[in-house]
Structures are given as C-alpha cells and as structure tokens.
C-alpha cells in the first residue's frame, strides 16, 4: 500500500481530476489536486477494482465478523467488478459495474447464482434501478431506460436515452440511482478532489421520462449511496469527504435531507460540518451549511446505503440503514466494512460496525460497495474488489 502510485488512466477511481482535456496544458489529475509534495503523499493514488475476480475458494467470506446470530455466505463469485445491486424482474438480481466491468449482469436467485451479462461494453454503467417493469441504467453521460423488460433481460435491445445532459468526465461522474414516488434520483459529484464545482455537486431528480429536472440537495461532493427512509420518505445519503487534508480528516458524512431542494451540505466550503476548507472556506461559515447526521470516518469511501426493509433480522435492525465503507486509498491505514446506522430522531444517527474482516495486513481482501434486501429478508452485499456477492442471514441466537 505504501508504494501506491496512480495511473492517470485510472485516476478516476474514487476522487478524480477535472476533465483534463479542457485544461491546457496538462493540468494535474483532479484526484491529485491538493496533494502535498511529500514522498508518502506522492505515492498515494486511487486504485481500481482488480480485473480478475477472486476464486470462490479464496474469498474472505470465512474471515468476516458479524454480530451474534448472523451468518454470511458467498452468494455469487466470479462477478467481475460487482458494484450496484437492485432487485430485477423474474427472480433476477441486477448487478452494475464501474470502470473495469463495463457491464450489467443478471444473476438468477435460483440455481447456481451465475452471472449473465445483459449489457456489455457500456462504459461506467454504474447507475442501476428497476421499477415497475422498467430498467434504468446511468453512465457518466446518459441515463437509459428500457420498458417492459420482464422476461426480456437477455434481449434488451437499444435503450431509450431519457437524459443526456450529464457532464461526463472521469471525476465523480458515475451514478447511483433510486426511484422514489415516480421520480428518478441521481447525483452529479464535484469534478475534482476540491474545487468550485459550479453547477454540479448536487443530487437531482427527474420524472421517469427524463423531464422536469429538479435540484434535491446541494453542496454534495460525491454521494455513491442514498435511500429513502420508508417511515417518512426522507432521503439519507453518504458523502465522500475531500482528500489530502490530512490522514485523519475530514470524515465522510452521513447526511439527511429534510428540506428538499433547499439544503446545502457544505462542499467545497465546509467539511464534516465544522472544518472550513483551507482554500474555499475563506469568507464562509460552517453554520450556514447543513451539518452531517453522523461522521463515517476519514477517507472511508462510503458507498452504498440501504434501509433494511426485511423481516428476517431482529427488530433492532428494522428501520436501520446499512452503509458500505469501501475503504480509503487516501490514508495509510486501510479499513472498511459494512456498517449499520439508526436515525436518532433528533437529526443525528448512531453508527456501528456490522461486518468487518475485509482487511488483512493492511491490504484489502474485499471492498463492499452496495446492498440489496432479498425477499426473504436476507441482505446481499456486493464486493467489487473480489468480484463477489455475499449473503447475510440471521439464524437466531
């Protein structure tokens, strides 16, 4: 880990550079903006998912630690770059990918759980959602929609482009999607580690035909996970904090949208609710921005977020949200895991580790990315590093 250096070609991973093509002559990659010129820092950079899935018998599944009564098993292996998870039609789980895969898979819930590619050669096909017979897939430039896909996942044909005004580029440009009350929610992250993001760094929503774009939340550096609380319909989202500030600061944020369209969560002016940015924080006051509901750790790479809507887990977990910490690249000591958070009813949230054991000798054996609550109430966790999906179930004490 100490000798990490990045490839510009892969720089986009966690935090990436401004579209370099537009910036003469050769600007530094966006993820490197703000990097101190020390030897250690100069050897740190984002790392992509490994291009070969970990063989099933070498997955870290047996090393995972969970609360008593829970067990975890390998649900699917050999799923290169497994990233976003959504329930599809006909007992299929849909799986998206990011830089490495360029694919969308379906995995039948019955049988051997073998991934079958249903979309191929689509760059940054990370955003995925299925709703009332329609499949939505978002790249960094476009949002596609396929209608009446039930029973036709293997022959999707051309998708209809319902939205093509996404800015593209490498930096924080990939998508995470949710449908809520007949609107599709997506984010456009800040095009840099730290910069004036202009009109970006926001969560937006559109109607399911791509019309009527509205801003839902502002000052969002890069959210790669959000979900609506089934109790009150409010949105909770993870937000990745800036890099190169220090090893321990700032924290990623867990945020709560209580006034749609009106709140600003701080980027690029204020981090984790109380740290003015050394460059962009001048003349700004952290009090003017919505503070996080909880802190998620420095450079944690907080990705997928999902409210637990099943019945299998104990009552304590009903109404809780699961959060995937992918793990830092911009920190010497690695850590990650599946975490669980409970809204405290007072604007905050309590966060606890739920499944750990993905890190050995300061190296990632796996990196959790997203979740899906299965019909039986068990929880699927995707791992883009190992190319696997794990299933967590509760068997009692």
């Amino acid at each position, binding site marked *: 880990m100490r000798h990490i250096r990045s*490839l510009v070609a892969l720089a986009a991973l966690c935090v990436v550079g401004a579209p*370099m093509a537009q910036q003469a002559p050769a600007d530094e990659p966006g993820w490197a903006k703000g990097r101190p010129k020390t030897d250690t820092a100069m050897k740190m950079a984002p790392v992509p998912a490994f291009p070969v899935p970990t063989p099933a018998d070498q997955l870290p599944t047996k090393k995972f630690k969970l609360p008593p009564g829970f067990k975890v098993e390998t649900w699917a292996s050999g799923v290169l770059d497994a990233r976003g998870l959504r329930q599809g039609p006909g007992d299929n789980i849909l799986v998206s990918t990011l830089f490495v895969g360029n694919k969308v898979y379906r995995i039948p819930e019955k049988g051997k759980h073998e991934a079958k590619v249903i979309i191929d050669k689509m760059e940054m096909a990370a955003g995925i959602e299925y709703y009332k017979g329609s499949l939505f897939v978002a790249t960094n430039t476009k949002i596609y929609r396929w209608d009446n896909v039930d029973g036709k996942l293997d022959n999707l044909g051309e998708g209809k482009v319902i939205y093509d005004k996404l800015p593209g580029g490498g930096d924080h440009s990939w998508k995470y999607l949710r449908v809520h009350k007949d609107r599709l929610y997506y984010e456009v992250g800040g095009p840099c580690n730290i910069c004036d993001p202009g009109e970006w760094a926001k969560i937006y929503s559109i109607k399911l035909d791509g019309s009527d774009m509205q801003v839902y939340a502002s000052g969002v550096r890069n959210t790669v996970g959000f979900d609506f609380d089934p109790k009150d319909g409010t949105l909770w989202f993870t937000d990745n904090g800036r890099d190169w500030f220090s090893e321990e600061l700032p924290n990623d944020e867990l945020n709560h949208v209580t006034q749609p369209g009106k709140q600003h969560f701080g980027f690029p002016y204020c981090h984790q609710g109380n740290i003015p940015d050394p460059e962009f924080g001048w003349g700004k006051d952290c009090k003017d921005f919505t503070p996080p509901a909880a802190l998620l750790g420095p450079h944690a790479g907080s990705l997928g977020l999902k409210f637990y809507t099943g019945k299998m887990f104990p009552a304590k977990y009903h109404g809780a949200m699961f959060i995937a910490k992918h793990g830092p690249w911009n920190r010497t000591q690695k850590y990650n895991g599946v975490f669980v958070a409970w809204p405290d009813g007072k604007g905050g949230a309590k966060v606890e580790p739920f499944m750990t054991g993905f890190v050995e000798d300061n190296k990632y054996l796996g990196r959790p990315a997203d979740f899906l609550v299965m019909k039986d109430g068990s929880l699927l966790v995707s791992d883009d590093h190992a190319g696997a999906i794990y299933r967590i179930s509760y068997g009692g004490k």
Partner: protein
Amino acid sequence: MITPVRSIESATAASERVARFQRRLASGTAALASVLLACAASAQQPKSARPASSAAPRAAAASAAAPNPYPQRFASLCAACHGANGRSEMPGTPALAGQHSFYAVTQLFLFREGRRSNEAMTAVAKQLNDADLRGFSDFIGTLPPVPAPAPAAPPDAARMKKGAELAQQHKCVFCHGADLAGGQQVPRIAGQREDYLQASLQGFKSGKRPGYTMAMVGAVSEVTPEELDILAYYAARFPGAPAAAPAASK
C-alpha cells in the same frame, strides 16, 4: 460463467471502430502488428509447438499443482518477443522487466477483453483464464528492471533537458513518480523501449489506446506529437533507470 449477450455500442460507433482498425492496418501500426503476430507464432514453437488456440496451457496450469508453472510458461509463451529476462529486443515490443504485476494483469485483462487493441496480444490473452492472468502477472512482477542496452551515442543533452521539463510540465511524474518507476496499476516507463513509448503516447493522443477511462488520453491531449516523442526519448533514456536497476547491463 459470464456470457456477453449484447453490446450497447451503437452501430455507428462500431462501424467507426472497424474503419479505424482498417486505417490502422493500412498504416505503420500494421507493420508492428504483423511483427508481433509473427513473434507470437514463433513463441509457440520453441519447445512445445502448441497452436495458439490450444487449451494446453490451461491444462498444464491445472496439472502442475506443486511448482509455479508460470516461469516456464513465460519462457515458452512470452520470452520470444519480450525477452527471457523481460527485456525485449524486438521493435515495438515493451520491456516487461521491472513492470508491476497490477499493471501487467490490467493490460492482459484489457487485451483479453478486446479493450486494448493489439492482435498478437489479444490472441495470446484470449487463451488465458483468470488464474493465468494472475499467474503471468505475478511472475512478471518478480522480474527486476533491466537497463536498456548501452546506446551507440550518448543521449542528446538538449533533448534530455527538454524531456525532463516536459515530464514536469505535463505532470507525468504525478502518477509515474519522480523516478518514472510507476507502481500498482501505473507502468514503469523509465528505461522502456523508446519505440514502444512513442507508439503508446501517440496511441493515447489519437484516442486509439484508452485505459479504463480516457484519462491518459486527456493527459496527453494538450501535448504536441513532437513533445510526445521527446518524452519517449527522455523516459527511454531516463538517467535514474540504469543506476536503480540491480541487473547488469548487457
């Protein structure tokens, strides 16, 4: 395990790609490709004379449980072009010595997926399963850097100076490091073959060689072709490279 069903790529984009490929075949790259193809073919012959499409390598990997089969497989499959010690003497063929296993596995993956265009390497990579990709890459990662053969003439001082300036100005060192040795998924470019560096940089410039993203394409977009050649000249003769290399110069 994973069966591609369809491509979202539009017919237009696909036909453009074919047209590009045909143009490339008609251009100088064709010479390189055919050299590599010939070389891949010859690489099959020395010991085992197995055809390129044979499943034999996979079977060999499976049967050789105890010793690591990849040094031998490298010798029979890769060495004819890339050199027994990973220092290629073949025009246009990159030195693998000193390359990082993460970079190697990424490139093998891109060749196998058809996302990095090179007929010879794609033909080779298509025979490899996931374990092979790891095995070859891990072995490549153990090969120490080997300095370039001593040049006939000392490097052109003005060109080297310009190259050093360009490497700073265009932020090459931001990812490849001050010693141009790379790391993880970033290739070592210090001491790499100049012709290969030239072709790679021009490939990025023309957009014909994307990585996972177009970021390297973006990185060179503002660099003139002449400057790219100077960078290739400089990196190939990088002053730090021979000193850092443990192996003796030939």
